[in-house]
């Protein structure tokens, strides 16, 4: 019985609650319908602003669907009821078209909507033909934008570096697109000549950017002295590099050891890029342009960790491998510039890491993994054909072509100034003789730095094998992956690289049959391309720590206080794969770094001796007092702050209607004033029954 009463009470409560929630619909809910999408935002460098911003109150334009190029003509040739907001599918989102829209001016074109209809799309890259051109080696041979054969992004339009006078809003969801199209068809898409006379379906995009002109200006405005309320106008692009070593380094106890270690430790630096870029906020996975490189680096790390003998049994016991993933590389090599800057100043690793600083003398050579769009066309790049480069090339090829492994790859070499836009550029810029070797493939990515560089671009399908991805597999065991699958490609390349490094370190040829595990690649890509709630990330986390979001981690470098998802996950994954299990240490003692407790593949939990750490990826330009923003020495990218991105559609009343309403209102106002004045001034005449003293108002003045 009691339970029943309780249940009844609960029901009553719920009813009441529901009643309380019941809210009337406000008029504006009937007037507006919000549209979900991603906005293009503004970034600034030392001299320019790029990207887009709406007007302060929000940009409003009448929807106009562009199906074919000819539809643009209607908008460009004095449209009847400007401003308009063209909805453009990606294949028409070309440099030429957008420049024409810019030319039409904000009076005619106030908003551009990019709708996700990629059917006819052949290419979509808005990066420059020569990415990071001004931070790379200053040599015409390095990259020639006018020559597709030698440029590093021949499909690039450079729109990412344009400044648009209107907001661009990307609408990915088909339902939202349908909403827009329906509205367009219902209200706009007929009798164009009467557009000026009737209400039209319009869109309003709010994405006002508070920064303007250049980083220099907005940093100045943000400084405290100019800005009492502490509001920010822009933030420097800032992230975290993640690094780890194969062998743990000694913990520095006091300064006396420093010099000793500095002179004797020798590192092979293996690096790749962590971040990517795109025009729209929060969209863009950079699957092909940098994630493949990161996957390979991860695999190499895992392989070396498991293949290499203990450091003490190496021919040179002071040798080590340092893996670094540089963040912010898409924006003029922020991470690697900072790395170089720090190493020059003996500030890497940072003091809090309690490891001896690394100098350039400690770096034996650098192997930089660039973009590997097409693994059949990998080249080893170096400025000059040093013996080192020759040797490594020979080692790589010996494994790549070895019939025992059947990789069947051929790695060519290019020893010239035609260096790809990768992190090594920062090192070579400092010292052209720096032993930097770059693995890079011929550019084949038609969606470089764009929202479409996604799962489809790399043809990834998740196998979801649920098998142990940390173990190395025999070369013949492909776990059912097809030879041309992404997982196998990554397996092959990373095995080759790892074997070559193995040979370099041990001085012996690698003769084992174990190669990289394609399952690891499978899990890796799943985590980074589809969902952060994945086995690999779970294994690399503390047991029971919160799950990742069921969406891929953001890989844009972002700003201080940004999500920093990809560096965080990379940190864990590298930490997990490059650590040594310490079965004897119980969980309770496994709390202080370098000891760290991981969930492990099966989630049972294991204590490991880790080597990974972060280093700052903030451009040195923001550290140097009185930095000359125009010098071009360091990356100066900042990101404007904004308060919100929003888009909504509604009916925009015609000006005729507005003016009619206003004039009726004014007439009513004036009439009523006159009438009331006359009546009140002569009220005693009107209400004659009352005694004169009762007159409500002063006596009449005139009539």
């Amino acid at each position: 019985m009691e339970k029943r009463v309780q249940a009844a009470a609960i029901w009553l409560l719920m009813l009441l609650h529901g009643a309380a929630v019941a809210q009337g619909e406000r008029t504006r809910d009937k007037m507006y319908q919000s549209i979900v999408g991603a906005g293009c935002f503004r970034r600034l460098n030392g001299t320019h602003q790029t990207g887009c911003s709406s007007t302060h109150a929000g940009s409003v334009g009448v929807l106009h669907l562009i199906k074919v190029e000819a539809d643009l003509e209607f908008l460009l040739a004095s449209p009847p009821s400007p401003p308009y907001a063209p909805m453009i599918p990606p294949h028409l989102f070309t440099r030429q078209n957008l420049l024409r829209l810019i030319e039409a001016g904000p009076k005619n074109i106030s908003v551009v909507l990019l709708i996700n209809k990629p059917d006819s799309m052949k290419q979509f890259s808005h990066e420059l033909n020569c990415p990071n051109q001004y931070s790379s080696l200053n040599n015409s041979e390095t990259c020639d934008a006018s020559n597709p054969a030698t440029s590093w992004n021949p499909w690039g339009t450079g729109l990412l570096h344009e400044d648009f006078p209107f907001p661009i809003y990307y609408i990915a969801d088909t339902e939202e697109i349908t909403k827009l199209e329906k509205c367009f068809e219902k209200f706009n898409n007929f009798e164009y000549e009467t557009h000026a006379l009737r209400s039209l379906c319009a869109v309003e995009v709010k994405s006002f950017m508070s920064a303007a002109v250049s980083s220099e200006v907005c940093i100045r405005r943000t400084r405290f002295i100019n800005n009492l309320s502490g509001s920010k106008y822009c933030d420097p692009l800032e992230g975290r590099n993640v690094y780890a070593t194969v062998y743990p380094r000694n913990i520095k106890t006091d300064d006396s050891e420093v010099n000793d270690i500095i002179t004797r430790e020798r590192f092979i630096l293996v690096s790749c890029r962590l971040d990517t870029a795109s025009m729209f906020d929060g969209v863009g996975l950079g699957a092909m342009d940098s994630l493949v490189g990161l996957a390979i680096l991860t695999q190499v790390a895992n392989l070396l960790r498991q293949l290499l003998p203990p450091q003490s049994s190496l021919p040179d016991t002071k040798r080590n491998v340092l893996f670094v993933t540089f963040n912010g590389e898409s924006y003029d090599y922020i991470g690697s510039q900072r790395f170089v800057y720090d190493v020059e100043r003996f500030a890497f690793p940072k003091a809090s890491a309690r490891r001896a600083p690394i100098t350039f003398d400690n770096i034996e050579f650098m192997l930089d993994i660039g973009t590997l769009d097409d693994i059949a066309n990998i080249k080893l790049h170096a400025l000059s054909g040093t013996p080192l480069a020759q040797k490594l090339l020979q080692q790589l090829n010996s494994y790549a072509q070895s019939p025992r492994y059947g990789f069947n790859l051929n790695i060519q070499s290019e020893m010239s100034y035609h260096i790809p836009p990768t992190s090594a550029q920062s090192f070579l810029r400092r010292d052209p003789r720096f032993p930097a070797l770059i693995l890079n493939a011929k550019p084949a990515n038609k969606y470089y730095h764009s929202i479409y560089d996604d799962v489809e671009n790399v043809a990834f399908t998740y196998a979801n094998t649920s098998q142990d991805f940390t173990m190395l597999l025999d070369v013949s065991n492909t776990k059912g992956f097809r030879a041309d699958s992404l997982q196998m490609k990554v397996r092959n390349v990373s095995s080759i690289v790892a074997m070559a490094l193995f040979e370099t370190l041990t001085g012996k040829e690698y003769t084992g049959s174990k190669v990289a595990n394609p399952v690891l690649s499978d899990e890796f890509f799943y985590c980074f391309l589809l969902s952060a709630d994945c086995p690999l990330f779970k294994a690399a986390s503390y047991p029971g720590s919160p799950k990742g979001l069921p969406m891929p981690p953001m890989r844009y470098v972002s700003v201080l206080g940004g999500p920093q998802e990809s560096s965080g996950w990379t940190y864990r994954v590298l930490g997990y794969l490059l650590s040594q299990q310490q079965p004897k240490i119980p969980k309770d003692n496994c709390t202080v770094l370098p000891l760290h407790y991981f969930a492990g593949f099966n989630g049972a939990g294991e204590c490991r001796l880790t080597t990974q750490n972060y280093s700052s990826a903030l451009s040195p330009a923001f550290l140097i007092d009185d930095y000359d923003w125009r010098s071009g020495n360091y990356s100066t990218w900042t990101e404007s702050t904004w308060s919100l991105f929003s888009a909504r559609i509604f009916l925009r009343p015609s000006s005729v209607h507005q003016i009619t309403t206003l004039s009726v209102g004014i007439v009513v106002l004036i009439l009523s004033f006159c009438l009331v004045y006359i009546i009140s001034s002569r009220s005693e005449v009107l209400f004659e029954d009352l005694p004169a003293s009762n007159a409500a108002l002063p006596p009449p003045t005139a009539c």
Partner: protein
Amino acid sequence: MDGHVNASSSSRSGAGADGSGLSGAAERLERPPRRKQPRSSYGSNNQDQTDAAVLAVPNVAVRGGPSGSSRPARLSGGGAGPTPNENEEDQGLKYGAQHVIKLFVPVSLCMLLVVATINSISFYSSTDVYLLYTPFHELSPEPSVKFWNALANSLILMSVVVVMTILLIVLYKKRCYRIIHGWLILSSFMLLFIFTYLYLEELLRAYNIPMDYPTALLFMWNFGVVGMMSIHWQGPLRLQQGYLIFVAALMALVFIKYLPEWTAWAVLAAISIWDLIAVLTPRGPLRILVETAQERNEQIFPALIYSSTVIYTYMGTHYTPQQTEPAVTSSPSSSNSTTTTRATQNSLASPEAAVASSSSRTGNTNRTNPHHNQRDDSNVMAAEGMPLVTFKSNLRGNAEAAGFTQEWSDNLNDRVARRQIEVQSTQSGNAQRSNEYRTVTAPDQAQADAQEERGIKLGLGDFIFYSVLVGKASSYGDWTTTIACFVAILIGLCLTLLLLAVWRKALPALPISITFGLIFCFATSAVVKPFMENLSAKQVFI
């Protein structure tokens, strides 16, 4: 009413301590005994009488304060001629409605300014930074957690207020006027310059208007200096009023901006309760403060009180004449009265010392009083402000601290002033008048010449909290709630004024208005809003 009048007249007429005491006793039994003792301890008759009058004043809610023999002289010196109390009362009633409107307009303007700001400058409607004394930030989604957070925050805030008020009393009684005054000026300086600059910055940002530094600084300099002058020294009445309204609105915005959601509501409720206690209980600190100020013939400091008439000019001019006059007419008594009051207050703690001080001062008073008075007023306010200031400065940056303090001090002052509307008799700061008049119209001023005296006063704290209420209501984006709050507050103000007219006794201006405002705010947003939205969506009119 008559009784009050009579009492006042009797007290003024210079009736002995007894007479005044009786009148006071009629109204509040508790007080007279306490005070009588100190008086008796004094010694000199003159002093006693004056004391009695002064003391009686607070008790007596008589309006006709100045009518007393000694007072009239002062008043006349001030340019106002004494008139019979009865007349004053009648006039008070007659002018009541006008005075109500004279308060409605500035209160509405202040609210309007706040509401307009809240709706146009998003900076003020989002809370991301918090005050030090609201350590709980209500970040939890749980209503229960939020509730106790708000409760704890408001308790902390209120205890700060209480402590500061007590500190202020101590400071004031110790006559640390210079410090108090200095702090007051400093805090209004901060408010007028730094907070105004912040406001300007946010305003420009909200409308995306670029402005160069020379222009902004030129504007700020002129604005701030003119404001300081008109608030603390002299300037056109309208200008002073405008500045006071602006300052109050600014302070309200600061509260809205920095107090967490629920805390703001809790503080509103708590402060009106505190107002009630502080003003109405016999030992309420604000009452003591006010009485002290009145006894010292002080006016309320212009930086803290909105007045519909000119005050500050008198601070310089009036006071001197007033005080000198008393000296002339009933020189010993009047001068003594002020001093004695001080003495009495001191004497509350240690009678002998008080006597000594009073006697020693009496000699000087004639000349020095004017200054004292001025300072006293400012000190009073400042004193309240002071403690807060220091407190805050510890907590936060100077600017904010100062700003807050200022406001707090304002609030305190208001409370001190009882937040009521005070009709001001510029004249001598008869304690009586000030007491009474806080409430209603300015009957005292029967002196026709001094029209200014007819002015009505309302503490800036009331402005601030009214505006906080309305501004907070409008930050939810529903205009019906805002309007309902607005109407409710005005009606509450009306009722307070009505009660003042009826009871002739200092009343706090916050409780009724804030209670009405809170009830209507929540009722409207919870119940009326859905109903009206349903109606207006279907275009149904009722």
